[in-house]
């Protein structure tokens, strides 16, 4: 049984495109990154999976349950953290956390207390007094306090300082080791590469690729960096992308023949050459370039 499985999932808002024919599979126990630029359809996918919007076509299952027919049962096993954390402004943090647990008919006080301590959250403050980062922390606690089997997190680290981001991901890694599936939507590719085992890229509502982050980083494309007085643009190489120059240095993504590359490089007066695997950020640029 997969944690998430969509079959030709499609969502239109009137005539506007949301997602088109999305076929996405996330295995149980995975730590999965969902990558795409703003407006690509990441949030639409998540909102459709959670029943906030109804699909226009196709179907989806979460933990083996149909999203249209078993919504409440699905939500009892899911912890969701939206990209923008909004709560009832006049309520105190502890009341929001208790209300969230109450809606789940669960006593989550012990776990909520542990999470508040780790995230250094003052539960006596009113929501309206909180910064974006602290509202995010409330959102994390509401999403995790009931020990969900699947965590769906939409742009979770925006607004969190680097130390809190590390603490947050360490909590997620612990939950993942305990068996929970983690599904993170993000455009911060370094964190997807660091923490996720698998990732999918969505663009203009369509799924481009879904694979292990390791495989996504191992494409035919290489990052070539050259330094030397003799480096003059343009180089006579096809399949060059993302060309960047800085003084006597040139850097570009190359996906053509290695022999052709070496022939061109052999004719240049270079002081330094490096040919490396591009990071996920660069792969992402490659897909969207």
């Amino acid at each position, binding site marked *: 049984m997969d944690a998430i499985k969509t079959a030709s999932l499609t969502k239109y808002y009137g005539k506007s495109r949301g997602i088109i024919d999305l076929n996405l599979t996330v295995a149980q126990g995975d730590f999965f990154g969902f990558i795409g630029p703003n407006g690509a359809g990441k949030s639409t996918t998540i909102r459709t999976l*959670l029943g906030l919007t*109804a699909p226009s076509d196709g179907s989806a299952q979460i933990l083996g349950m149909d999203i249209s027919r078993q919504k409440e049962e699905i939500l009892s096993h899911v912890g*969701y953290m939206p990209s*923008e954390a909004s709560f009832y402004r*006049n309520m105190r943090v502890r009341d929001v956390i208790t209300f969230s647990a109450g*809606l789940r008919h669960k006593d989550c006080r012990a776990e909520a207390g542990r999470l508040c301590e780790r995230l250094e959250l003052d539960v006596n403050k009113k929501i309206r007094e909180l910064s974006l980062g602290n509202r995010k922390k409330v959102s994390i606690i509401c999403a995790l306090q009931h020990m969900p089997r699947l965590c769906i997190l939409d742009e979770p680290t925006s607004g969190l300082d680097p130390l809190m981001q590390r603490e947050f991901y360490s909590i997620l890694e612990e939950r993942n080791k305990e068996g929970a599936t983690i599904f993170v939507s993000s455009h911060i590719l370094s964190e997807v590469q660091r923490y996720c085992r698998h990732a999918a890229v969505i663009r203009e509502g369509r799924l481009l690729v879904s694979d292990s982050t390791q495989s996504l980083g191992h494409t035919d494309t290489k990052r070539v960096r050259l330094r030397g007085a003799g480096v003059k643009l343009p180089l006579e190489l096809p399949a060059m992308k993302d060309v960047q120059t800085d003084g006597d240095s040139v850097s570009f993504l190359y996906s053509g023949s290695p022999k052709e590359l070496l022939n061109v490089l052999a004719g240049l007066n270079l002081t330094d050459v490096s040919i490396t695997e591009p990071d996920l950020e660069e792969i992402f640029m490659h897909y969207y370039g």
Partner: protein
Amino acid sequence: MVMIKHEVRQGRMTLLIWTMVIAFMLALCILIYPEMETQMGDVSSMFAEMGGFSAAFGMDRLNFGEFMGFFGVECGNILGLGGAFFAALLGISALAKEEKEQTAEFLLTHPVSRREIVGKKLVSVLIQILLLNLFVAAVTAASICAIGEEPDIRPLYLLLLAYLILQVEVASVCFGISAFLNHGGPGIGLGMAALLYFLNIIANLTEQAKFLKYLTPFGYTESADIIADECLDVKYLSVGLVFTVIGIGAGFCRYCRKDILS
């Protein structure tokens, strides 16, 4: 119960303010009645000569020299209009406020069905209306005792009941409208309550506009009719009940299928 408790807590300041204002105004009117009673002979004859204006407010058929006549008009203006405004505000914001304040996403991603959310929000609206009316009724009773009046209990009870039903109808219709809104619509709610009030005034002015009484819940809260007949007008009440059911039904139908965008 968690949801209902949450809703009532969220609205407690609004409830407190509206309850206090309406109860205070009603108590004030009742407490000054003995002072006014002595001047009522002149006032009643003056009202009788005012033609359409008196008819618009039902004052042509009420005896200001009697407590119930005085109470009928004052009660109509304070509890009728004030209660309708309060009910309209409650109803119109019940569902729409979650989207306006961007809390819908938080609420609807908990394992609670939309049907349950709509039902519990409706119950909390009704609880708040009931609390206001219970307090106002208690203050009214205490104020009447304080001035030593002993009015007929049945028309008094029917008047208060009619206003309670009016508030339920206004809140239910606004509740239905609320499901179609993405932002809170207090202006729509207050505007609708005012419109319904004025429709009744127009209906009182001319026989040709009498049909408007079927459209407005103020039609069955007419003090002059209730005090004279000692019963509520079933034909207006029945139409009001239909509007109430349509409002609630529309709220359920729309909200259970609605896309929550942000």
